[in-house]
């Protein structure tokens, strides 16, 4: 079975380490906050100027001056800090954020990512995504393995305009967890019940398959 949105978030959460500063993108990445393992302390960075993002507020504690990068009202945890957008992106660009999780339309065997623009469709802007992919060393891209017609989103070369060139090393899809190195996708894990054959069939870019591909464990 392909992973659900919640399972994608859950699998990403297994990559969190104690003491990590983490930036979670909009969509599935945001859900990772719901699965932070017991006994692990992480701090969430929101690029509009907040380190230490907490849960949503109550009607009583809601504050128009405290939002996340998705423009949702949030709270700040004890030990949080606020800062300007320039300071925020100094953290990101300077490589101080330990893990970045974000979505994509396409990735390719060279680690390039396309996530912000579909020619012919309305372009809304890249927001902070280009800075995040350029600045972070440790990025996990969460996405669907193929579109609804079965066309692969893991490609030999991205077809859409790029968000970043050669910057992605790990991709978690609804079917597989892959690493990108030496110009190929390397299959690390498969979703429970998903066959290696299906992953091969739905991966357009070069895919290296080891002899044994473990199933993800939840």
């Amino acid at each position: 079975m392909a992973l659900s949105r919640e399972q994608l978030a859950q699998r990403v959460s297994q990559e969190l380490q104690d003491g990590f500063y983490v930036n979670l993108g909009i969509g599935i990445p945001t859900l990772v906050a719901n699965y932070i393992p017991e006994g692990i302390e992480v701090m969430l960075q929101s690029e509009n100027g907040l380190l230490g993002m907490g849960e949503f507020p109550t009607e009583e504690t809601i504050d128009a001056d405290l939002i996340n990068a998705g423009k949702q009202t949030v709270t700040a945890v004890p030990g949080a800090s606020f800062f300007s957008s320039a300071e925020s992106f100094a953290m990101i660009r300077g490589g101080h954020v330990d893990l970045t999780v974000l979505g994509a339309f396409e990735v390719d065997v060279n680690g390039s990512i396309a996530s912000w623009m579909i020619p012919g469709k309305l372009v809304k802007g890249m927001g902070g995504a280009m800075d995040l992919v350029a600045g972070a060393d440790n990025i996990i891209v969460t996405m669907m393995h193929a579109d609804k017609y079965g066309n692969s989103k893991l490609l030999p070369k991205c077809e859409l305009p790029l968000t970043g060139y050669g910057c992605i090393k790990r991709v978690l899809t609804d079917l597989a967890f892959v690493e990108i190195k030496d110009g190929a996708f390397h299959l690390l894990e498969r979703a429970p019940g998903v066959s290696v054959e299906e992953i091969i069939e739905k991966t357009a870019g070069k895919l290296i398959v080891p002899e044994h591909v473990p199933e993800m464990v939840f």
Partner: protein
Amino acid sequence: MAGLNKLVNSYEAALDGLEDNMTIMVGGFGLCGIPEGLIAQMVKMGTRGLTAISNNAGVDDFGLGLLLKSRQISTMIASYVGENATFEQQMLSGELNVILTPQGTLAEKIRAGGAGIPAFFTATGYGTPVAEDKETREIDGRHYVLEPALKADFALVRAWKADTMGNLVFRKTAANFNPMMATAGKITVVEAEHIVEPGELDPDHIHTPGIYVDRLIQGTFEKRIEQRTVKAATK
């Protein structure tokens, strides 16, 4: 105005000298931390052909969306403009020129503009449409794009607390682009929620020193919330 007192008593005085075809910077992230009264004053003035530098474009009936609706902005420099239907129409019809800029690059371009740095190299956007027609350079094996600084004729800033000398304190995520923009305007106008006398702000806690601020006005704010998210009440 006397000496270092930056306080003005009317929005007319706050934006005196703003003319057609000028470049303005407007603080805020979404609707959070925007100078609401200064935007309203620009609508009232009807100044046209503006180049607006702001992270977002507001929503249809609030924030910079008001200036778009009245067709006063001809060029918009922003990182994300997804929440505004008026904006979409004007962009698609070609009447609005849009320069999409990565958020961190936008923040740094403004910071550089205020700090006397004419341009800087960043890895952000290399190999993407953002880098087209820009100078690139390889430094220590990595590719970078040269990004020029941004300045403005008027920088419009919202602060939480200010003293009359223009020392500023921002609140929570309403800071966002405001601190950098305060440094990058030929004329920086601050709309503050609370104005106090010099000496009442702890000098250790001032985010923006008054040297950057030219005019200061007491504002009143609606503080509209774009995405009102709350957790379920605990039983």
